[in-house]
């Protein structure tokens, strides 16, 4: 898996490989959702994401963006994070989902992508939102693709540096 980074930034996303405006549910601008395919972290707030989610040709989508509050860190292997991954596998799978990582051992958040109205309603039941706060946003076209559901039932990462549910070693 190549390194891929995601961040919600204010203003333009310098050097991003894909970017689109994000809008809050109240209609106010929420910044720019941006992605970078590179080894080094592009901006301070960027987190590693499953690269299959990023598609510069992707259509508009709704997302649940779960982020750890500043200064809060939770081990990726925490039972709460394990249970959230089980819940994702158990329930109807969204257009795409990825955990977000800064390093090899901590859960820093998750992004869940919805396209159909049904998927959008389910964003309010995002299992990762039971761990950290979620922001529901609409995102314009140009950044988010789709990824197939994992086969299951694996909840482990394929290499601790890779976001779940990326499902191959190497």
């Amino acid at each position, binding site marked *: 898996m190549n390194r891929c980074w995601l961040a919600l930034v204010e203003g333009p996303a310098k050097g991003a490989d894909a970017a689109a405006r994000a809008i809050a549910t109240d209609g106010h601008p929420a910044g720019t959702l941006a992605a970078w395919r590179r080894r080094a972290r592009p901006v301070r707030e960027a987190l590693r994401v499953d690269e299959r989610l990023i598609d510069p040709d992707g259509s508009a989508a709704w997302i649940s963006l779960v982020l750890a509050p500043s200064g809060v860190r939770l081990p990726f292997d925490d039972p709460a994070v394990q249970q959230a991954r*089980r819940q994702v596998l158990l329930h109807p799978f969204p257009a795409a989902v990825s955990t977000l990582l800064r390093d090899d051992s901590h859960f820093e958040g998750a992004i869940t992508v919805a396209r159909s109205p049904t998927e959008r309603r389910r964003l309010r039941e995002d299992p990762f939102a039971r761990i950290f706060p979620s922001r529901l946003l609409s995102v314009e076209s140009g950044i988010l693709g789709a990824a197939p559901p994992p086969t299951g039932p694996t909840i482990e990462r394929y290499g601790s540096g890779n976001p779940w549910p990326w499902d191959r070693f190497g």
Partner: protein
Amino acid sequence: MSAPHGARHATGAVGVDAIGELAVGGQVPDFELLDHAGNQRQLSQLVGGDPTVLHFYRGWWCPKEQAFFRRLVALQEDAEVAYSRIVSVSVDPPEVNAAFRAGLGARWTFLSDPDRAVQTQLRLRETTDTLNNPYVPAVVVISPDLRIHAAHNGYWYWGRPTHDELVRHLRDISRDLRPDWEAPTP
């Protein structure tokens, strides 16, 4: 119920040598079917790089299947941390599979073969049930190249693999597959 298994009896190996077109040492065809959410899925993509339990079952209505699924649901507690996968296949449509899966609490992929195309290809139709024309119950454990490591004919319930037998098959494949099976030590 005509699979040959005399040689296996002699060696004490579990399972059968073949069921339908699924023979130990052979390869499962890389078929495509709809999953429980209606997505087109290819077997090789579902298997990825992991040992996989590929399970053909009659349908949600069969008490024997309900009992065996409880065994697989127990297995998923191990499989979810063991880099192993499970795929279940029936002739039921995706919406029925989705409901059955949810009721079981299964967290793996269910595939639908309502046209019985794969069933025909694999010669796995249960000929004694002309009402449902279901799959004959069968379990094969396969490696990432879709090669069949073990096969179990579940027409009679005791022909099905136990939890321990499935673990043994998955361990055998994992040992061959993982280059660092012998843990690196100083």
